[in-house]
């Protein structure tokens, strides 16, 4: 059972390490093709939006846009906090606090 997860961790290690290591190591020698750079620039925001949307809008397998969806409600002040502070720590910390407040109401 655990050996399956060791494989997963090895896979994750490779796909995490290679994108970090290759450009900083090789960039003096190799140039990334322009079209790839342009797609990559969009992959950054696109993957985060793709991950975020289901987490906020889908509860128990159905789209939920209502006041009982606390994640969606808490996301609004969290976005505002992220925009103004640009700090990972502050956003994560206050985000949890906002969610807590919405669950109390």
């Amino acid at each position, binding site marked *: 059972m655990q050996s399956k997860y060791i494989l997963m961790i090895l896979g994750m290690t490779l796909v995490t390490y290679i994108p970090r290591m290759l450009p900083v190591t090789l960039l003096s020698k190799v140039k990334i093709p322009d079209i790839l750079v342009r797609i990559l620039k*969009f992959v950054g925001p696109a993957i985060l939006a793709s991950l975020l949307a289901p987490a906020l809008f889908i509860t128990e397998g159905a789209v939920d846009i209502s006041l009982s969806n606390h994640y969606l409600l808490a996301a609004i002040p969290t976005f505002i906090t992220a925009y103004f502070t640009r700090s990972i720590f502050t956003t994560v910390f206050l985000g949890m606090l906002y969610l807590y407040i919405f669950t109390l109401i």
Partner: protein
Amino acid sequence: MGREFFILNYKKSIISGFKKSIPVILGYMPIGISYGILALQTDLSPYLIVGMSIFVFAGSSQLIAVNMLTAQAALIPIVMTTFLVNLRHILMSASLSLHFKNTPQKLLPIIGFVITDESYALGNTLIKDEEENKGIFFLAMGLSAYLGWVFSSLAGVIIGRYILNFEIPVIGFVLPAMFIILLILQINEKMDIVVSIMAALLSIVFYFILPGNWNIIVATVTAAVAGVVIENAI
């Protein structure tokens, strides 16, 4: 300008790097602790939970993996999602490479390992002030932050296992909150917003069509390519 001069200078850069890593470590702490607590709810053993922090060293990827494991996802979508999430580091790594022209080549593969969202964000602004040994400075900052990450997740495992034997519902929001701030940090132009909205909508639509977590990969690639196509058309 002998050897001693360089050693002295290295020492200065190393100490400076350690000091500057403190805000990065503070940023990792809530994420690492949450990761440790959440990971205990999967089948991962405590050793593998900390092992993942030692080998992978990527907060968002590790939380995504734990989240997907909880949702019974297969391993290939987990690794592929990790890959796509980490593609943004290519651009960070490329932009940092400009500062490391005078850094010993042998250190670059290790420097690459410590590039994270947090170390990049802070390093990119601080590195300009470092007169010498920018590579050594970044490496010291990164390695110190790395230790902070490993110990934060270990702390999470200990807290989750021995101190808190109940679930804290707000911890589930760490990952969405992290996506929100990382998304905001990735938005530099109007087209980024257009691509993000397309990706969000596609991800929800494909969620109901595709099995597993393939909606994330398909939506991301479609929206990113569509962004380039739209740019070319304008």
